[in-house]
């Protein structure tokens, strides 16, 4: 029962392509072996050899990773026996080398060694053998070629699987980010709006319906959170260039925009400090790459804004600069207190010529530039 269960497990977990190859080669070998058995005088030794060969082939079909060793041993047994080995068994040995090299590199190398050692034994133990006259060199070259093919196929398959996995990770990360940034916030907005409606309209008959809708929204929010957790990968993609939205790379991974902005901030804050300004700068851990033109525009805009602080702001009130970025847009905000407040009736958003120039460039890029943000 235990053996049957193990055989069933091996059958269910087999690699189909590899098993089909092994079965095809095995069938050929068994057919040739049967032919030789029926056309040669019977001996117990031949019978045992045949049986061992059959078991090795069956094991190879079920578990090619380890069964390859059995095939190699059966081949060595044939090399060292006084009777001829079936030709198909030689090919079976090469196939076993390649397949075990594909499945398990070290086992493949071991199988290759066993076969070449067996061939050497055949050369030494027999006066006439196809290993003579350079045959062993040809056989060793074939074994080596089979090993290389198996290993190279393994490497290529592994790389392909890794790239596929990395693509899935990137896709899931993008989905997770969308769910996190939009779906979660939208569902939360629904819940808060319902809370507001339920609190404001305590006596309406629809209150019960609103509460049921709220319950549904809370359930949807909970399930979305679970979906995000299920989609998120812990391991980052293995190719260095893959974007990882959630990850925050160190200094070496910062974009040219980030580096230039940091360098500019150092210089400008130096100047502002000497003028008596105590400022706060908020930067994300990384700014996305923006292309050369956009980088120049953004760096120029930050320089202009900080220059305006020096010229027009009240040092005792300091300044705060914030750069916020997502994959679609970059937001640059500056808050300070003008030395000369604008006259009543005059819009405080009046832009100087410098900022007007930047406003035009930003508008051309489908962005916008505005004045003070309203507070409630």
């Amino acid at each position, binding site marked *: 029962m235990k053996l049957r269960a193990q055989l069933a497990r091996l059958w269910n977990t087999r690699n189909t392509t590899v098993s089909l190859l092994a079965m095809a080669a095995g069938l050929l070998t068994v057919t040739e072996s049967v032919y030789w058995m029926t056309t040669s005088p019977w001996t117990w030794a031949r019978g045992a050899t045949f049986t061992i060969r059959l078991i090795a082939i069956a094991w190879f079909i079920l578990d090619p990773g380890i069964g390859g060793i059995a095939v190699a041993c059966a081949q060595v047994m044939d090399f060292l026996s006084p009777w001829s080995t079936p030709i198909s068994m030689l090919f079976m040995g090469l196939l076993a080398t390649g397949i075990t090299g594909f499945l398990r590199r070290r086992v493949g190398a071991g199988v290759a060694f066993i076969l070449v050692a067996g061939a050497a034994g055949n050369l030494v133990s027999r006066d006439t053998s196809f290993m003579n006259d350079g045959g062993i060199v040809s056989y060793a070259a074939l074994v080596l070629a089979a090993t290389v093919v198996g290993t190279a196929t393994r490497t290529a398959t592994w790389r392909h699987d890794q790239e596929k996995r990395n693509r899935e990770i990137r896709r899931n990360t993008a989905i997770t980010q969308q769910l996190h940034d939009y779906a979660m916030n939208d569902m939360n*907005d629904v819940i808060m709006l319902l*809370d507001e409606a339920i609190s404001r309209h305590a006596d309406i008959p629809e209150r019960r319906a609103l509460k049921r809708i709220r319950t549904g929204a809370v359930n949807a929010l909970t399930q979305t959170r679970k979906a995000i957790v299920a989609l998120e990968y812990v391991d980052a993609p293995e190719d260095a260039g893959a974007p990882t939205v959630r990850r925050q790379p160190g200094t070496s991974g910062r974009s040219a925009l980030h580096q230039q902005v940091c360098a500019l901030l150092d210089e400008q804050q130096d100047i502002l400090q000497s003028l008596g300004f105590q400022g706060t700068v908020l930067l*994300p851990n990384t700014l996305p790459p923006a292309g050369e033109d956009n980088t120049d525009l953004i760096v120029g805009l930050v320089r202009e804004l900080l220059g305006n602080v020096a010229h027009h702001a009240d040092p005792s009130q300091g300044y705060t*600069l914030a750069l916020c970025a997502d994959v679609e847009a970059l937001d640059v905000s500056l808050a300070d207190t003008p030395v000369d407040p604008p006259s009543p009736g005059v819009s405080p958003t009046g832009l100087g010529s410098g900022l007007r120039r930047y406003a035009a460039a930003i508008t051309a890029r489908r962005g916008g530039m505005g004045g003070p*943000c309203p507070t409630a």
Partner: protein
Amino acid sequence: MSESTTTPYSPVRVGVLDNDICALECIVALLARLNTPNRQIDAWASNNPAQAIQECRFGVRRTNVILVDMALNGLTGAQIAARLRRDVPDIGIIGMTAYQPELYREQLHAAGAQALLDKSTLRKTLPLALDAVSRGLAYPADGGFDSVVQSRMAASDETAKRQVVWLTVTERRVLSLSMSSMNTREIAQTLHVSADTVFSHRRNIKNKLHSNTWYDVMDLCRSMHIA
């Protein structure tokens, strides 16, 4: 102090920072409902981090508590909280998120906040959190956050830990000259190097002190009384 609802509270000025306009309006409406004679709340709101910090630092009226969303288009609520803890040491900070709060708890605690609320349950948790944080306490008491006083002390300890940093002789000279209000050109002339070299040294110093900008380095040195 008893928790009696009839005890009159001093007016509490509460700021709200959230880049989601809908959530911002709902929270302001919620705060308006919580405004009672026993709990007077004066609320302001902004979707702009720069403006919110400026208001907390230099507003005409002092902000007692600020509610900060944890995701602000690339900036994190923890970054805002850390900056506020440095610039406005006595302010109470409450983080809020539409996502799972557990993911932000540790970094928000390290930033010096007093509470982290799930936006979907704000209706129930906000009044209690405001009552606690406006008095400088953490919410809930066993939630893993520090009080305002403890956060301030923790921030000072963190500054002290950064003292164990090895700077080269030249880096120390650059730092010392910067502290004496010399600008980059003047430092370059004094050290007989180019301005680019001075910037390079500054970059190294920033990395060693784990600071984002040179201003943070100067601020750190001032807090450590380095002349």
